[in-house]
């Protein structure tokens, strides 16, 4: 029987294959949602989806795109905005 606190669905269940060959369910805290574009709402590529303690460890360049509006807008929306700025 699992521990009472693990019976709730706040924990994600991950099946792990142990070195002995048997599979066991591990109880892990759920990860946050994927980062999304500020205008169109598509998921952003190259931005990790980790819990804050792990995001702290990661470097700045590993959490963003090396581009103006990187990490906030998707590449298409960023291009459109920069084009607009250039024409003004």
């Amino acid at each position, binding site marked *: 029987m699992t521990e009472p606190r693990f019976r709730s669905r706040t924990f994600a269940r991950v099946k792990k294959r142990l070195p002995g060959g048997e599979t066991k369910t591990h109880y892990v805290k759920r990860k946050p949602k994927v980062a999304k574009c500020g205008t169109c709402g598509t998921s952003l590529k190259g931005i990790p989806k980790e819990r804050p303690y792990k995001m702290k460890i990661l470097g700045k360049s590993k959490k963003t795109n*090396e*581009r*103006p509006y990187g990490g906030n807008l998707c*590449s298409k929306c*960023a*291009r459109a905005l*920069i*084009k607009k*700025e*250039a*024409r003004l």
Partner: protein
Amino acid sequence: MYETGRLCVKIAGRDARQKCVIVEVLDDHFVMIDGQTRRRKCNIKHLEPLDKVLKIKKGASHSEVAAAFKKEGFEVTEKKSKPKKEKTAKKRKSVEKGAAKKSIPKKEDSEKTTKPAKETKKKTESKDKKKK
């Protein structure tokens, strides 16, 4: 539209939102750019042309491009390379220990080398005695 000297804004990549000038047309799709961005080959799709055309020779050097940019009033930040410092090799503690260990067998070696020498001397002496 994309001829040499055309001022553009880069849309994509790390140099996005920076102004550049077309130095050379390489292809139907690719041009050589320089200016506020780094000097590089670039796809036309990654450029947004502006209405200005700078007076630049085909294949102009970076200094010429920078001068043309200054005339227009655009700043070009130059990369400053730091003067290289000579690194002094740090002495490791582990190395010193190793040297001490090595020194011990050396003594042994020296003893070994000396011992046979003595023996040879003795032998020679004995030989000499025999001769006498």
